[in-house]
C-alpha cells in the first residue's frame, strides 16, 4: 500500500472538508481506481457535473498509474475567466 496526499480545489475542498487529504492506495493503482476509492469515501463527488484528476500538474487518463511521490489533485469543473 502507499499513502497518497491529494490536493483539493474549489468545491472539492468543501467535499473533503479541507485542502488536502491522505488516502491509502494499492501500489500501482490507476487514476480510475483512485477515483472509485474517493467516490466511496466522499459520495458527493458523484454529484458533480464532472471532475478530473491531475497527476504532476497534467490532466490524467483513467488508465494512468499513480506512484507514491506524484503530486495528485482533484479538479472539479473549472470556472476561471
Amino acid at each position, binding site marked *: 500500500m502507499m499513502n497518497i496526499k491529494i490536493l483539493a480545489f474549489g468545491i472539492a475542498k468543501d467535499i473533503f472538508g479541507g485542502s488536502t487529504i491522505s488516502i491509502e492506495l494499492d501500489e500501482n493503482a490507476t487514476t480510475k481506481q483512485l477515483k472509485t476509492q474517493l467516490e466511496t469515501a466522499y459520495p458527493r463527488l458523484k454529484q458533480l*457535473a464532472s471532475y478530473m484528476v491531475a497527476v504532476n500538474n497534467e490532466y490524467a487518463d483513467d488508465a494512468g498509474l499513480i506512484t507514491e511521490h506524484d503530486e495528485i489533485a482533484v479538479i472539479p469543473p473549472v470556472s476561471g475567466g
Partner: protein
Amino acid sequence: MNTQIEIHTEPLNVQSCIDWIMSPHSGGIDVFIGTVRDMTKGKTVVCLEFEAYNQMAIKEMEKIAQQAFDNWPVQKILIHHRTGVLAVGEIPVIIAVSAAHRAAAFEACRYIIDTLKETVPIWKKEVFEDGEVWVAAHP
C-alpha cells in the same frame, strides 16, 4: 519573451498589460478584460472568490498560448489572471494579443479566453446575499 502569463493576488493593471504588448511590429492589439458583473440569473452578486491551482494553471495557460501561436500569425500573448476576493467591477482576467493584422489578434484572443474557461484549473465562487455557489460545479 513573446508571452507573459501570470497569476496575481493584487489588482490587475490594464495599462501595464498594454505597455507590455505594444510593439512597433504590430498593426493591431486586441485586449479582453473580464469584469465582475453585479447580477447572475437575476440575483445580486456581492463578490466573487477566485482560487487557482497556480502551478498547473500557469502550465495550462502556456499550452493555450502555444496553440494560439500555432494557429494564428500573432506576435505576443499576455494572460493575467487574478485570485482572491473580487468586488463588482473588478478585473479577474486580462488577455492581450498583438499581431501584424487585426483578424489574427481578434481570433486568437477569443480562442484564448474561451479555452481558458474550459481547461485552466481556476475556480470561482459566487457570493450572493443569501448564500454562495461554486460556478459550474453541479449539472
